[in-house]
Every structure is written in C-alpha cells, then in structure tokens.
C-alpha cells in the first residue's frame, strides 16, 4: 500500500506538469471526437494519431499519455452517436444503443448522455484504480516467465482472441496466421538472413505494423463509406434545451455501476476479450438481475449505465495484460502495444522496475484524464454533439489524408504508402467476409516474438518439444489456450452475440 502511494506520487509528479497535463487534455478532446464519430473507433483513432505523434518527436511518456488519453476518450465518446443516431460510434458502444436510443427518442436525449457520461466515468475510474493495484502484482508473477511461458501466453492471446471475439473460429485463426505470416517477412532475427521477401529490397526491414494498422483500420473504413455513399440511414435525434443532471436517477444505478465495473474490468483483463465483451456481459447481467420489471430495452437508466460502465472498465482492464505481459487484451491495446514497441519500451514485468516513471505517470494521467473526460462529456457534451453534424464527405477524405501524411512523414517512403492502400483493400475484403482484422494486427506485432520465444525455448531444451509443458504456468496457459479456442464453438449455439437492433 505504501508502495502504491509512493509510486502514484511519482506518477502525479510527472502527470501534473503543465505540458503533460496539456497532452492529456488534448488527447481526451480528440478521443471523444473520434469516439463520437460513427465509423471511427478507438483503434482507428489511435492508429491514425500514432505516426503524427512520432513525427512530432514526443518522448515516450508524452506519446503514451496522449495516445492512451485518446483511447479513453474514444471509449467515452462512443456512446454519443449510439444514443443520438442509434449507430454505435465504435463496437463496444453497441449495447448502449439498446436503451440509450429509446430514451433519447422519448425526448430525454440529454439525460441519456449525462447518465452514460457518469457511468463511463465510474467504470473508467475504478478500472484505472484496479490497474494501479493489479498491474504491479501481476508483473511480479510475470518474472517467473521464460521462453516457454511466453510462447504459451502468445498462443493463449491468439486463441482467445479468435475464440471469444469472433463468430467463426476458422476465420479468426486464419486472420492470426495472416498476421504472423506477414511478421515473418524480413530478416530472420536469429541468422540475419532475409526471409519471404521475394528479393524485394523494400521488404528487408519487414512490414511496419503502423502501415498495416492504418491500412486495415482507417483506409478500409473509407471504402465502406464510399460503398454506402455516406448514408447513415438513421434519423438523428436533436439535443434540445439545457442539459441537466438527473441525480436521483443516477443514484438508483449505484449498485449497477459497482457490479458492472468489477465484471467489465475482469473481462478487460482477459486477453482477447476486450471492451465489446465487457459491455455485452454487463448488460446481459443487469438485464437478468432486473428481470421483466426492469424494462430493459425501453430506455431505462440502468440499461444505459450498465454497458457504459462495462466497456469503460474493460478498457482500463485491457491495459493490465498489455503493460505487465506485453499481450494486449483488445484491438486498441494491440495498437498501443505497437506504440510501446516503437518507442523502444519493452512491456512486461521489467517495465515496472526499469521505467516506473513511464508506467506511473501513465496511470496518474489516466486518473486525471477521467476527470477531464467527465467535464467534457457532461457539461460540455453539446460541443461533441455538434461534431456528429460533420458530413462524411468531408470527414473521410480528411481521415485518409491524415493517415497518409502520418505514415509518409514517418517513413518518407512511397512504398509504405502503397502498402497502406494494399492493406486498406485487404481490410475491406476481410471485413466483408466477416474475418476479424484485430488478429492480423496482433499477428504482425507478436509473430516474430512468438517465433523467437519458441526457438529460444528449443535452444534451452536442445530441441525437446515436451519442454513447452515443463512448467505449471506454461501447461496451464496452453490448456487455457486450447479450451479458449474450442469452448466457444459449443457455447455459440447457446449464447448469441446480440446483433444491432433496428428501428
């Protein structure tokens, strides 16, 4: 406990410096906008901003704080279009449409935005505290990890990501293979000889994951907008009059918020589960607790609070495995992991010992960011509602140009821009075929590390494959990976992922 306070004071020392504070505020602002815009989720938002952040020459702490603030902001902002347009601003905000839109239709758009804003705050704040407590503890366990354990852990991440977060195991696994296969391109780390480059000199350094991320997430989105001709298809609800805070109604959701914070946080910590699962689980849980009388789905406060608490708590939880083990719990944390790797910071247990300044200033900044976001999303919510009026015909070309310039200013290479377009097309086709793109990113990020850990393990054991099962930790992880991949096949018939409700 004393440790925690000492660490937090170290963190706040850095986080409260005017420059860092400014970065956090800018991040919150951009993030909320990104989240609010339909079609631009947290992963897109962070992906587009990464190259720009690097070209600005921010230091590790600054870049990480800016981007994580965007991540948190996007999680808050996602609810705005869910409530007003019945279109989730990002995937985790999908469950918020179920009660948020009916409440807005009943003329209580302002109340819905305020309740969900408070819910986001409670979920994100408690999860950040959870992160501060759990991450150091988990990092001590991570010290036990050798190559065999890390290999098993990566396997677990790929399996659960494919298992829980997708509709079809084969497609999810294929996406992972695609990513890992791309990661192999370039120089073999052990021998220094080129592999899979087809003799193309541009490929000797491998394919930068930033290029893949921007292509798969941002450019493919532009193609979807062109296909739909920018039609949103839903009648938006206008926010009229003063926004007031319905205190009494928020008070009735207090237990819902606390329960959902815990469940959402746990969902976030599990590798591969992420915020979408967090909001799904919390909504379903509260719906069954409230029963028929709860009137979930008709625009009740608890139905708005539950998924928002859930997805924001999961967003904080997903940072735990990312920081302590280097294994992201969701798509956006995969992108944040890419940031860490590019900044030459190795996530994992040593991070907490070697760079406590980075970790603790990040946690302190996130605690501050939550208050900033609460201010932006409750009293100032009208500013962000205006953002929804930007027509896609201006927005999407803007997003494309920002992505291209970001990559270009980072690498200065036309070849990388071509790859961005190629990944954009690939992303479009994959998403059309319902093949998830997050495992591709994860594969590109972790593929070489996974291979390296496997090869190191085999060097240690002199080629004996049973070494992978030699420790309890690695055996448990491998078994969990297999169960996590296979079990959802049987559960899928019983628990259906809720599809979007139509008007």
């Amino acid at each position, binding site marked *: 406990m004393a440790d925690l306070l000492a660490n937090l004071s170290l963190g706040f020392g850095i986080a409260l410096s005017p420059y860092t504070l400014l970065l956090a505020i800018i991040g919150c602002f951009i993030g909320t906008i990104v989240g609010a815009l339909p079609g631009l989720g947290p992963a897109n938002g962070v992906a587009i901003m990464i190259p*720009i952040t690097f*070209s*600005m020459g921010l230091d590790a702490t600054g870049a990480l704080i800016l981007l994580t603030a965007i991540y948190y902001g996007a999680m808050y902002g996602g609810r705005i279009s869910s409530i007003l347009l019945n279109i989730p601003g990002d995937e985790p905000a999908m469950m918020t449409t179920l009660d948020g839109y009916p409440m807005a239709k009943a003329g209580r758009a302002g109340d819905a935005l305020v309740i969900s804003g408070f819910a986001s705050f409670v979920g994100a704040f408690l999860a950040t505290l959870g992160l501060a407590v759990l991450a150091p503890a988990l990092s001590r366990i991570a010290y036990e990890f050798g190559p065999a354990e890390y290999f098993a852990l990566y396997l677990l991440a790929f399996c659960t990501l494919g298992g829980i977060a997708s*509709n*079809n*195991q*084969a*497609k999810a*696994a*294929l996406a992972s*293979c*695609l990513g*890992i*296969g791309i990661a*192999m391109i370039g120089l*073999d780390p*052990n*021998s*220094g*000889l080129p*592999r*899979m480059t*087809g003799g193309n000199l541009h490929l000797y350094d491998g394919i930068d994951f930033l290029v893949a991320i921007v292509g798969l997430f941002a*450019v493919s989105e*532009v193609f979807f*907008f*062109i*296909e739909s*001709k*920018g039609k949103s298809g839903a009648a938006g609800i206008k926010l009229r009059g003063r926004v007031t805070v319905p205190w009494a109604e928020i008070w009735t959701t207090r237990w819902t918020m606390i329960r959902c914070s815990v469940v959402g946080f746990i969902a976030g910590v599990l590798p591969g589960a992420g915020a979408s699962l967090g909001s799904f689980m919390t909504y379903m849980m509260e719906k069954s607790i409230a029963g028929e009388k709860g009137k979930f789905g008709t625009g009740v406060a608890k139905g708005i609070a539950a998924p928002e608490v859930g997805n924001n708590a999961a967003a904080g939880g997903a940072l735990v495995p990312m920081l302590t083990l280097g294994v992201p719990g969701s798509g956006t944390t995969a992108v944040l992991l890419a940031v860490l790797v590019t900044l030459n910071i190795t996530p994992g247990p040593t991070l907490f010992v070697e760079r406590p300044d980075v970790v603790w200033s990040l946690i302190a900044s996130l605690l501050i960011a939550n208050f900033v976001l609460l201010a932006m999303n409750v009293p100032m919510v009208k500013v962000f509602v205006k953002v929804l009026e930007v*027509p*896609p*015909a*201006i927005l*999407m*070309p*803007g997003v*494309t*140009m*920002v992505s*291209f*310039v970001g990559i*270009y*200013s980072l690498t200065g290479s*036309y070849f990388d*821009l*071509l790859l961005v*377009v190629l990944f*954009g*097309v690939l992303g479009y086709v994959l998403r*059309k*075929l*319902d093949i998830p793109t997050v495992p591709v990113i994860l594969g590109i990020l972790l593929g070489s590390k996974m*291979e390296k850990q*496997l*090869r190191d393990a*085999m*060097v240690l054991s*002199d*080629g004996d494959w049973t070494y992978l099962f030699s420790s309890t930790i690695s055996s448990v992880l491998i078994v969990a990976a297999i169960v996590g991949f296979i079990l959802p096949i049987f559960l899928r018939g019983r628990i259906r992922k809720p599809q979007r409700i139509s008007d």
Partner: protein
Amino acid sequence: MTRPSDRIFGLVVILAALAYIASALQVQASFLSDPVGPKAFPIAVGIVAILCAVTMIARPDAEPEWPAVRSTLAIGIAIVVLVIYAYALKPLGFLIPTAVVAAILSYQISPSPKVSVLSGIGLSIGLFVLFRFVLGLSLFGFPRGWF
C-alpha cells in the same frame, strides 16, 4: 456453387499458403543454426492457414452483401487515385495532390461537385497548415523549384 465468397477466398488462401511454404523451404539456413531453424515456423503457419481455409471451403458462412457494380467501380477509382497519390506526394508536394485526391474521394462518398471541390481545397490547405505550422512536420507544399 452456393456461398462462393468464402470458398473462393479459401482457395486463394490455400494457393498463397502453398507459395508461402514453398518460399519458406528456399530460406537459406545459416551455419549458426538453432534446433528449430528459420524454416519451421513459417511452414507451420502456412499449414495452419491451409487447415483454416479448408474449413472455410467446407463450411462457408452466409454470403456477404457485395456492393453493386457502381459502388465497386467507385471503390476501384478510389484505390487507383490513392495509388497515384502515393507516387505523387514526393515529386508534386503536398498541396496539389492532396486537394485533388481529397476532392475525388469526397465526390465518391457524396456526389456533389461543389462540396467536393471545396472540401478538397479546404482539407488540403487546412491540413497543410496543421501539419506544417502547428505540428511542425517537414512537408513540402509545392513541387521543389517552384519558389
């Protein structure tokens, strides 16, 4: 053939994976070899990909809604324009290619000439100011030698 999309994609993946495995077999092993070597992991990934693709061919999902011919054409144009943009950015500077490309993309999303031209010019100048003067990136606004 019912549900062709998943099956065709599966076939493409199998061919690509076979090419990938063939390419992995050609990888030179160095004298500093470890028990696994540089070939095994890529080959394993290729094999898993083939297994997944076979599953996709055997049990395809419901057919996705592919865009109509006109939308496909619009996406095709967007791809070509972006490829040209990739080549044009260095020799022609930022402002002109960006304005043209942004205008074309905008037109593909919402076919109004006025809005597209304005958003092209606006985005080009606005982003240039943002990148160059606010964020301090080194960008060239015009082809070199103009000024």
